[in-house]
């Protein structure tokens, strides 16, 4: 059972993980690593959810976390499919290279 004392720390690590993931997305050029950082952020969210679930001892947190995991899985599948598609035809692996959207 999560004690009143430890809960803030748990949330702190969740926040740390989340922002670290965000930071990773920003500074890494390799799309795969960017992808992993996104996974990291999702895990951080799961951590927070589970933390709350046990702190407030209501299992909705865990159900939500489960759903998040499912969504993360689906996302990875599609994401990697896209990545292979985009980067397979000779484009070197760099996120900045895709800037056709520029005005």
């Amino acid at each position: 059972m999560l004690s009143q004392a430890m809960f803030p720390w748990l949330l702190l690590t969740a926040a740390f993980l989340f922002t670290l993931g965000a930071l990773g997305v920003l500074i890494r050029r390799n799309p795969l690593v960017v992808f992993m950082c996104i996974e990291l952020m999702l895990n951080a969210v799961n951590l927070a959810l589970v933390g709350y679930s046990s702190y407030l001892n209501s299992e909705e947190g865990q159900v939500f976390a489960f759903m998040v995991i499912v969504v993360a899985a689906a996302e990875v599948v599609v994401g990697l499919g896209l990545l292979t598609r985009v980067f397979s035809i000779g484009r070197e692996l760099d996120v900045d290279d895709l800037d056709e959207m520029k005005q």
Partner: protein
Amino acid sequence: MNASTAALLAGLVLLFPLAGSALCGLIGPVLGRRFVNLAGTLSIGAAFVVTLVIFVQVLGAASGHQSTTATLWNWLNLGPGNLNVSVDITIDQLSVLMLLVITGVGLLIHVYSVGYMEHDPGAARFFSYMNFFIFSMALLVLAANMVILIIGWAAVALSSYLLIGFWYERESAVLAARKAFITQVIGDVALVIAAILIFVNLSAVPACPPNEKCAGLPQALHTLSLPQIFAHASSLGVGSPLITLICILLAVGAFAKSAQFPLHTWLPDAMEGPTPVSALIHAATMVTAGVYLIARFHSLFDLAPIASGMVACVGMGTAVMAGFIALSQVDIKRVIAYSTMSQIGLMIFAVGIGAYAAGMYQFLLHAFFKALLFLAAGNVIHAVHDEQDIREMGGLDSRMRVTAWCFLVGSLALAGFLFAGMFSKEDLLGFGMINGPGSPALYIVGIGVNVLTGLYAFRLYGTTFRGEPRSEAARNAHESKAVMLWPVVILAGLSALAGWILQWPVAFGPHLIDAFLNPVFTSPGSGPIAKAPQLWPGVLGFVIGLTCSLIGIAIALRIWVRHDLDPSRALARPGLRLLPRLSFNKLYFDELYDTLLVRPTRALGRGLRRVGDPVMDSWIKGVSDVATDFSSVFRSVQTGLIRDYASYMVLFVVIFTIGVMLAAGLAR
């Protein structure tokens, strides 16, 4: 003559020329030349017959009610107290006299133009315009409401524009037509403003019902019908600045139409039109519409001595100026045009000093001999193959005997010896002795005009008909065809005898026209009539005038007919070098108006085109520029890199959560 017959007859006089114009214009080109000639002249002939009927009716009517007014239809009715105009016509001696000249001389000129227009493809169009002119002149003369008068006035201006610009391929004719029309529009606008002044200010004491006492306060009449205007003319204030302004505006209208100074520059250019046009419009009828206008508004002019004085001076001034310019002109039609301007100057002078009957008398006789001179000139031009420069002519009297003799009669009539001119000019100069501003002064100037007239009349006759033919064309000129000769002969007869018939037995003193027109000018409500000179001063004036004309003729004969003096040097003495140049260049009025009025307006227009709109456009450009600048600021944000977008998101998330935390924290 009761109202309904008046309406019928007037309607016919108007309808015939209009129908003729429509027929010739629309169907003429299809049906060919014969139909056009026939329809064109017959319609005017019919109008002339109806005019004769009216003339007989008016003569026969009892003295009390010779003038009748009838309404054809209500033109515009905007309710009581507002504009309420109806198309009403008046038939009285003055309008009948004008109608007689318009349709009579018009008929002769139409017969003449059948011959003149023989080789011109646009004959149908020509007859259509001429008929339309007769219609508009008739409308002007018959109108009894100021608005209808203005409509007739403008219709006349339109037809003169169409006829001057008849040969539209010639640039000079096109410009002359435009110049004539715009000058007429000036006159039109002046008339409209005068009408408005009258509409607003005319008032009358309402008729007081018999029993109760009424305050007798003058109540605005808000009408533009001429009979009512003349009946209540005194309500505009005798000699007041208001009535003077109205009369000056009317005079401006008259000057524009009668080519008086300062609006005279269009008449010489109007000679660009065919000769019958010059004969009918720019000699006999249209240019005298101004005289008619002042004669018609005599009750107003009598109440405004300052205005009529101004009119008299301008008239005499124009007479002198035109005479002076005519001396050095080389184009045969322009010499006659300036003589017209001079003679009309005299008429304007006559009506200016109140001698309305004398003015109309001069108008009648002038119509005859001026039309004669123009038609004869037409024959000459036709004979020398459209050459109008008199320096190329000469010695035509032996080649064109009939035209030469008629031209001589016309010149004598113009100069005022033996034939028509003598009677009317001496008559109105006689009035000039004792009436009008600084009464004898203008008379003396008038005498000078007589000399000038004699000079240029016989200079023209001398250079054209006498001496040796100076060009190949003049050498083998030959007499024109019968159809162009008969009208000239008839007019010559009229010019010669009309004076004597109307003035029988004595060459001066009261004449039939005076008796005929008096009821009009002494109708109730009209002001003081010019005093007629007593017997002896009248005879003395007549003799002095006659001798001056003879002096003029004698000098002219010596210079241009017997060549005692070399004509080119005649006026070329060093001292006088300035005068011939001034005279030849028409006192530089054209250039003056051009630099003063025309060029600055065009320059202003061009300036506005460059500056005007862009300035007014600027504020809307300003709005769009601001919008575009504002949006470009944001464009730099869209770099296209995913990571940038991600970082914006993160930044926002962070700020947002901190904000929420703080807010929640503070809320506690």
